[in-house]
Every structure is written in C-alpha cells, then in structure tokens.
C-alpha cells in the first residue's frame, strides 16, 4: 500500500458517554490542502487534538509517514513536523511578536540553558540564524511594524497572523489551521487566504484547514472531509461536496 503523509484509520474518541469522533478515516498527501468542515461540535478540533497528542483516541490509528503517532507526547509530535494554529488564539501573551515566533523555532534549534546563559559562540550563532528565519516569516506575513509589541496588545487579525508565523517557524511538513479566519472581516479574510496560498506555493507545506467560512474553503481546498457529530459523512472535491445531499442535510436540515 502506498504511504500517505498522514493517515487517519477508523479513529474513535469518546469522553465518557459522548462520542467526539467515531470511525474517522482520511488521508492527506504531500503539499495537499485538505479541509475539514462540519457544524459546531462535529469533532473538527478534536481531530486536531488527537493528531497533536493532546487527546488519545481509544480506537483506530493515526499514521504519520507510515508510523503510528498514538502515545507520543505533543512535543515529540511537533518535532516530527506537525505545526498548528488554534481556534481561540493561544499565543504567549506576555512575550513580544519576535519571541513568539522564535519560540516556534524551539524544535529546530538545540542550544541548551548553559550555553544560552553564557552566550558563547554557538548560542550566539544559532540565535542570529534564528533571527534571520524569523525575519523571513515576519516579512512573509507583513507584520514588520509589530515586531516588538507584546502580542496581548495587538489587534485580533494581527494575532492570528502571528500565530500562523509561530507555526511556520517550526518549518513543518504539515500545518493544521484551526479556523484561521474566524471573526475576520472580508479584507482580513482575503489577506489570510493570500498568506495560506503563498505558504502553499512557496513552502509547499501540506495543510489541514478547519473553517466555517464556506466561501474560503470551497475556493482554496483540494479535498474536503465533512464531519457531523463525530462521524464522517462525505469526502471529496469541493464541487462534489457542495452537491452532496447528506452534507446539505447536515447543514440545513431536512426538507419537510
């Protein structure tokens, strides 16, 4: 069987009696932009949390490059090259933009506390190389003027961009975007869509997009998975999904 970059095999996750995910299977290939949609509580964010190692599914398996991710700690999974942004911004509020994005480089750097404290050759060199990478990302996301601001003080749209930057700093193979344009106006949404497409084109990173903005999803996604109450109801190309009766039922209810 050919190996996908990421494969969910019949994943089931439940909290006590509530089934958050039930038999979710899908796969994502290199460089693909895969979208997961569904009504509230469909299990989209739970899918991410399973993938990140924050939750551990009771059933099924999650394969990354053919190897199981189950039971691995979140920081190990991050090191494999899976980066993420969060639905309700999870930036480090008291750190500035530079520090936040630099933190994303934690997995790609390795200077320890002693070398860091002494600021000896290697620590200094790594810090400067780091800064260069961080500046590239700042450049890409057009947040130059906010560099030294504590992120807690920044406007919402900019915080979303910083979070994307922090994830990019990890130089991931796959990027999980949890509602990147939630609560944004049209202009901000268009900016974000542009960044997502730029990242895909310039960096070739595979992405999983969870989003409620159907316009955006239908425009940029390669393939779409629709979840409803934890069960997958359809997978396919945007055009097919739009016509799928099951999906229409999940979103709009049945005709009476």
């Amino acid at each position: 069987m050919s190996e996908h970059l990421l494969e969910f095999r019949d994943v089931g996750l439940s909290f006590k009696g509530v089934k958050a995910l039930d038999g979710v299977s899908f796969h994502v290939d290199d460089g693909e932009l895969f979208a997961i949609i569904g009504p509230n509580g469909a299990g989209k964010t739970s899918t991410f949390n399973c993938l990140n190692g924050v939750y551990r599914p009771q059933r099924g398996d999650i394969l990354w490059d053919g190897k199981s991710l189950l039971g691995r700690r979140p920081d190990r999974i991050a090191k494999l090259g899976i980066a993420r942004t969060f639905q309700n911004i999870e930036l480090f509020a008291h750190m500035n933009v530079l520090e936040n994005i630099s933190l994303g480089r934690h997995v790609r750097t390795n200077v320890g506390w002693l070398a860091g404290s002494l600021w000896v050759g290697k620590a200094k060199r790594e810090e400067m190389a780091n800064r260069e990478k961080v500046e590239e990302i700042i450049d890409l996301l057009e947040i130059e003027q906010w560099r030294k601001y504590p992120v807690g003080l920044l406007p919402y749209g900019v915080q979303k961009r910083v979070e994307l930057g922090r994830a990019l700093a990890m130089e991931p193979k796959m990027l999980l975007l949890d509602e990147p344009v939630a609560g944004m106006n049209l202009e901000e949404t268009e900016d974000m869509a542009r960044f997502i497409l730029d990242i895909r084109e310039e960096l070739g990173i595979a992405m999983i997009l969870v989003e409620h903005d159907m316009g955006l999803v239908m425009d940029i996604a390669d393939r779409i998975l629709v979840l409803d109450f934890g069960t997958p109801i359809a997978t396919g190309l945007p055009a097919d999904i739009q016509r799928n009766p099951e999906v229409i039922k999940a979103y709009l209810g049945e005709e009476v």
Partner: protein
Amino acid sequence: MRGRPHLYVSYESEQSLLPTWTQRVIVVLFLFLMVLIPLNGGIEIGERVFQPLGFLSDNSWLKILSRVAIFGIGALGLNILTGLAGQVSLGHAFFMGIGAYTAAVLGGEVGKAHWGLGLPIWIWLPAAGLVAALVGMLVAPTAVRVRGLYLAIVTLGLVFIGEYLFRNLVSITGGSQSGRKFPELEFRWWQSEEPALAFNSDGPIWAPFNWLDWLLGPWINFPADVSEEAKTYLILLVLLVVFVVLAKNLQRTRIGRAFMALRDRDIAAEVMGVPDAKTKFEAFAISSFYAGVAGALLVAFIGRTIPEQFNLLLSVQFVAIILIGGAGTVAGTLMGSVFVFVFPRLVQDFSVWLTETVEAGGVLSSVADFFVSTSLDDPGLVSTLEGVSPGLNVSQLNLVIYGLLIVGFLIFEPLGLYGIWLRIRNYWKGWPFTY
C-alpha cells in the same frame, strides 16, 4: 555617516544586552560608582573632592549593600522559576539552606565540632549551587503533576521538611542552640594555605589593582587600606554582576523563551514542541543553583547562624522581592532587592530624624511630634525609645509598611517597581507631548 541617526545594522547589535551607547555609558558609570563607594574614593576636580553617594561607604550601609547583592542573586533564581517559568515556589529558603550547609561541610574548618573539609571557595561555592540544583531536580517532577497554588503548597512543605532536617542533623548544622560557623569569604588555592585574597579582613586591596591607582591616581583617591565590609561588598558585587549577565542571557535565548511559553500557555507550548517535564526540570535546577549559591554566600557573610535562618519567612522575603520589583524582569528583581533592604534603613533614619526634630523644637517640631512618641505618656506612631513605648518601634513599623507595600503593589502595580520605572521612562520619552 555623521549626522545620521544611530541605526542598527545587524541583528547582533540590536539583540545585544545594551544596544545603545547611552545605555552602555550609564551602566559603566553606575558600576564605576558602585565600586568607588566602598573604597571611599573621591573624584578630584581641581581643589575639590567629589564623593557622589559618599554616605554609602559607611560600614552599616555597606552591609546593607552586601545583603542586596546576596539576596539579589537568590531573587534572580526565584525570578527564573516563578517570574519566567511561572512555577510559584515557596521553597526557595530550603534550597538556600541546602546550599549553605553544602558550603559548610565542604568549606568549614577541619577538626572542629561540626563537619568541615576545609576546601577553598572555588570548590564550595559552585558545589553549593550544584547540590542545591540536584535537589531542585528531585523536586521538579511534582511541578509536572501539580501547578499554581498546589505547587506553592508542595514547595511550602519543603521548607518545613528542610527546617526539621537542618535542626536534627546536628553534626552538620550545629542544631538550634548555637548553630555553626561557616567558611569565610577568602580565596585560597588549597586547604591550609594562607589566603591569596582575603575578603574578610581589613587591609590593602589586592595588589594587582595598583595599576588602577597609577592610572587614575591624579583624579581619584584610592585609600591604601580597605575595610572588611568594603572588600566583602566588592566581591559580592562582582558575583551579582556575573549572575545578572547569566540571567539576562538565559532570558533572551531558547530555554528562557521556553520557560516563558510554559508560563503563558502550557498546552500551546507543548504543541509547539516545548517538552513540559524537561523544561520544568531545567527551571527548577537553574533556580535552585542560584538559591544554593545565595545561601552559601549568605552564611559566609553572616559567619554563624542557626537552622531557623532558613524558614518560611526567608522564602516569603524572596517572593516579596520579585513582587515588589516586578516578576519576570531582571531589572525589576534587582530593584526589588535594593528596595527591600534599603527601605527599612530609610524608615529608621527618618524616625531618628523625626525624634531629633521634636527634641530640637521649632516649627516642624509639633508636626513631627504628631508621629513620634518621645516619652511613655506621649502618643505617636513610632518611637525610637528603648524598651516599652506607646508607639511602634522602628522594626515593627517596618513590618507594617512592608506588608502594606506588598498588598499595595499586588493591587495597584502588578509590574512592580519595574512597571513604575517603565511609566516614568515612557512619559519622558515623549515629553513635552503626551505620547
């Protein structure tokens, strides 16, 4: 390039600790002054001799400054753990105690009532930090399990366990009755040699410094002999500067950022690749290292002390320092330790001054009399009388003010003295405009 504004041309210069020349000059001048003070040196300009802050060269003030340096080092450690990594700890006194008694065993005199190997300072001082760091690592796993207030309670328990242990390990600590003697602040190469450098006795300053006298002699008076207090203060100042630089560097590099990330959002930090357990481990180890060194220096500075020195009050004092100074910042931590030790002295001097004003009579006398009680039947807030008096004595007044200050800072200025400084600075940056 003349006439151009000073621009940063490399990331390195922008990210250095003191990026602008103004900052560099201020820091160098300040350090110069802090070194000049204990030497009682004056700057000669023509016929006059200037002694900026000369009053600090008084021995009682030098002792206060020495305490500022020792507690500054300890507080930097707590700041790394609590201010940066967000792990509330009340166990700092315990780690200081571990450091202190490690120093005592390694550096204490040989063949006395209590254990002592008579090793020199370059062994016992780092060892005090390392042993404390090891013990810190043993405690760290609890921080992975519990957080916030619960961690505070666990570490609170440490202080009591520590006090109990220290009280009962009489052959090491001397017990509660008389305590024990601790190693002295002197530099020797090996056990029984004459000290190459003694910071604990009056005498000439270290010979290699003579070139400074030769260089700066025309402008600056260097006294031939320096007091014990001045030498002690100088070596502690050097150590403090070293630890400040280390703490600053830690904060601006990879691990320091990981600490702050865990403090702000621990789950997100993990998802971004910061290992929770390992990072907390490191925070505890580094913080305890600072505490151990500070503990060893404290007992060497005091000379003889009992196990109760390392009680909860000491831990609380450190928490107070970083709260008053401003948690999470090195500058704030330093401001906090200066404040906590200098302020009581100012209150005392002020009380004495008030009493003198009352006794001298005059316009201010009646105002001062309102605050000060000068005899048993004179009501007043504070009194410098010996024994029983109607008012508080000076140390009681200090405790009251200390408590009020902590409460006040928590409510009105969570960023502490550093926050106040930031506001003053930002105001003058834009002056005369409002922003």
